């Protein structure tokens, strides 16, 4: 992913979780193609991360015919709050998460 200065930047697992959850949260109920676009992930990686988020109870999957729709759980909302806090905390020490 490109940072503000245009250079390539490593995204940690936590940040990818946060990007996916933020994309889903903004939509209310999001389809994988929308998440893929917003979170800037390949299809394979997105499938892997959606599975992980669902298993951790951060996302809910609902089937609409053959298409899946994802929504954020209260635990997912809590994750986003904690992630933002920890981002500021680590940043204060000059560390990136």
């Amino acid at each position, binding site marked *: 992913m490109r940072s503000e200065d245009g250079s390539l930047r490593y995204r940690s697992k936590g940040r990818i979780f946060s990007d996916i959850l933020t994309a889903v949260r903004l939509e209310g109920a999001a389809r994988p193609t929308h998440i893929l676009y917003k979170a800037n992930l390949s299809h394979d990686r997105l499938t892997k991360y959606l599975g992980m988020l669902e298993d951790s109870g951060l996302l809910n999957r609902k089937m609409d015919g053959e298409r899946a729709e994802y929504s954020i759980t209260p635990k997912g909302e809590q*994750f986003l709050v904690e992630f933002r806090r920890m981002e500021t905390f680590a940043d204060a020490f000059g560390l990136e998460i």
Partner: protein
Amino acid sequence: MFTPRWFMPYDVLIMLVMTAVSMGIAIYALRGFRWVKERSLYYLYMAFVLLAIGFFANGLTLGYDFLQRTGDPNSFQPMMFIDLGFAIYFFCSIVAYGILAYAYFRNVRDASIAAAIFGMLLTSTMPVLECIIIVLLFALVFAQMIHLSIHRSRYSMIVCSSFVLILISHVLVLMSDMEQQNYYVIGKLLQLGAFVMLLAMMLKLRGPE
């Protein structure tokens, strides 16, 4: 390094306050690690737990030594117990600041430059424990200042300032001797000030979103 006897009870108190603040930061970092599973937070947790252990051991042995001598001023203490406290304190501090330095420099693209600067500093100083801590702190302040020049935030300013104070305090403690007892006292007060700043930053962060 010289600890004035009259300052020992205050020194114990300062050590206990710094133990509590360090444990608070460590617990906060561990809580964050449990949520977001990021190694940076685990390094912060490890570093501050070690600092807390070191401060506690030093405070405990200083306090015990002070009470022992107050009860019987003529008693001769072989300094074994107080030396053990200092040894634990130095060991924990070196490992803790080393972990923090590693956390800062592991992501540096040209780590060889950082390692070269660090190596030069290590070899150019006396291999005394306090000197090693000062070199590690210097590296931490250097890394934080670079970070601060890119991401300027209030919290980064507080953390960077507190590490500068800790660095100055260790230099003053190193310079203290029988004639310069004030250096030790000022150094310890600066260290307390640094940890109070870290506490204030953490309390502000823990507040509502």
